[in-house]
């Protein structure tokens, strides 16, 4: 690897897509496979400009199926490989991700959400939560980080590679078109300078030695002959996932465990929700804020504590209840009443959230 991409901490003002490209470089990502779709295109644009100067590779594929499957190949060759997509591309991406789930491939996928269903709108939405957390024909054995700021886009792009390679579950950074396209300040850094070690990578195939002579061959499959064989494999995956969950589940909160009304939001909407809650608290209202950073897996024990203490929970999202469904599963049987402010595919301001809280508080 060439010399460090970022020598010392640097304050910058850039778009989210540019941040992702820099974050992947800083994380020592070695190859990106991608296919154009708005609003993630500039990740590829920046990566293709930065990659040759930093001994990194890029392949533009024929579609997202190919982008996903080449990414699977890239990680099986032992490289930090990643891709980025959105909307209908994320739909196609679910097929390779299901292979990654089945074979525990440490792929990293950046999703810049756009409106849906179908082609819909190209800039903003939170409607890819269900697809990203639970898509494909499987059981949702993946990690999904929902970012809210450009600093987090940088931080979690780096973290996604470590989570993927440490736990061997496909890992996502879930953002949106606002985050992708708007400019914001952040501090870029070399992960080592913050004590972040990049988890080592290891090839699945193409290792040293002749298979069958010096070592056993790597035989990797996702198909099974009998139901019991698959069942046993999945039990192992579930056990690994459950063991990982307390180590990776993340959230942020303000007074969520002692407030009678708690607003729950994720991603960029959580910024509005946080601002609304801070305003209301300054006025003396008994209102708290909870933001799942990982949408999969969720921080279930903490959410249940919130939902057993509060009288009302207000779920705010730019979707028609996609996170709400995940939350309801997590807090099933808890005592709080569930209320909602859903605006699928459009932004939600702090003022709207504040007004809704005043109605229910």
């Amino acid at each position, binding site marked *: 690897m060439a010399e460090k991409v970022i020598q010392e901490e640097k304050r910058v003002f850039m778009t989210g897509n540019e941040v992702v490209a820099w974050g992947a470089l800083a994380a020592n990502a070695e190859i990106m496979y991608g296919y154009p779709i708005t609003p993630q295109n500039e990740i590829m644009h920046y990566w293709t400009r930065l990659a040759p100067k930093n001994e990194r*590779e890029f392949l533009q594929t024929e579609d997202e199926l190919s982008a996903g*499957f080449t990414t699977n190949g890239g990680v099986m*060759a032992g490289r930090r490989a990643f891709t980025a997509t959105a909307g209908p591309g994320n739909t196609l991406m679910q097929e390779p991700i299901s292979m990654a789930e089945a074979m525990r491939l440490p792929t990293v996928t950046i999703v810049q959400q756009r409106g849906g269903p179908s082609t819909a709108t190209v800039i903003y939405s939170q409607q890819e939560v269900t697809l990203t957390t639970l898509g494909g024909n499987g059981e949702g054995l993946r990690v999904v980080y929902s970012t809210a700021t450009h600093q987090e886009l940088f931080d979690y792009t780096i973290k996604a590679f470590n989570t993927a390679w440490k736990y061997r579950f496909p890992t996502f950074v879930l953002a949106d078109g606002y985050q992708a396209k708007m400019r914001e300040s952040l501090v870029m850094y070399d992960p080592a300078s913050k004590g972040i070690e990049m988890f080592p990578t290891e090839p699945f195939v193409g290792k040293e030695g002749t*298979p069958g002579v010096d070592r056993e061959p790597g035989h990797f499959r996702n*198909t099974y002959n009998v139901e019991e064989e698959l069942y046993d494999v999945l039990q192992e995956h579930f056990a690994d996932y459950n063991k990982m969950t307390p180590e990776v589940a993340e959230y942020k909160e303000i007074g969520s465990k002692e407030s009678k009304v708690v607003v729950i939001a994720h991603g960029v909407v959580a910024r509005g929700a946080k601002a609304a809650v801070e305003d209301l608290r300054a006025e003396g209202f008994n209102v708290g804020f909870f933001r799942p950073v990982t949408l999969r897996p969720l921080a279930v024990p903490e959410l249940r504590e919130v939902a057993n203490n509060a009288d009302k929970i207000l779920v705010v999202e730019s979707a028609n209840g996609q996170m709400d469904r995940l939350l309801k599963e997590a807090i099933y049987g808890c005592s709080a009443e569930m209320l909602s402010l859903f605006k699928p595919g459009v932004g939600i301001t702090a003022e709207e959230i504040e007004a809704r809280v005043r109605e229910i508080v």
Partner: protein
Amino acid sequence: MSVQLAMPNCWRMESKPHKFCPGCGHGIVLKALGQAIDELGIQDRAVFGCDIGCSLLAWDFFNIDTIQTHHGRTNPVITGIKRANPNVIGVAYMGDGGGYAIGSQHLVNAAARNENITAIVVNNTQYGMTGGQMAPTTLPGQKTETSPYGRDVAKTGNPTLGPEMVSAITPDGAYVARGTVSNVKQLTKFIKNALENQMNGNGFSFVEALSTCPTNWRTNATDTWKFLEKEMSQYFTVGELKAPGSQNEEGQANG
């Protein structure tokens, strides 16, 4: 008395006898591939990818690193590996459905990019694993489960000519041939040429192998061979279509 079985060195004894039906051509194609790998001494560098369909049954066939992928997606997986580790000799192994139907966009684009991998498509004129449905390669008039009265080309088109297509869209440097399990020596040579082409960094190499499926053809040994030799070979011309450096491409010549 121990019997010395004529198996390539890179075959994995523990997974033999193999999982294919009696009379299936896959074993012969994989023998040709195994011999070519042995002759080139690349068992340590080869990565074998198999598709969905009958080809997946080869997931533990060789003492070679192997990945069983999804239907039609073996070309991109092997492409991804090769791009990430160019030292690997990548082999994407699939049936005619994976190559010419569900994965056709991957085949076309890997060929157009002159991706430095080797793709092998086994053509047995129908979908074997799923029970004998019509494939892009089903011959005109041929009966399958989804063309029970015979393939009607007016409604379903003519059989795909894979090597001819790949030959037309690849730049110089690509290698394209069609062999048959009825001529193992020639098929082995074609596959060896294809692998050498990749080792030389010339670009995409592609071999279609005409193969047999008595289970779904519902044929005895005699009729199986007759269909391969008379019907299939008549429509699908065997020979090298493209090789780097050859002044006049051998085209339709029966090699």
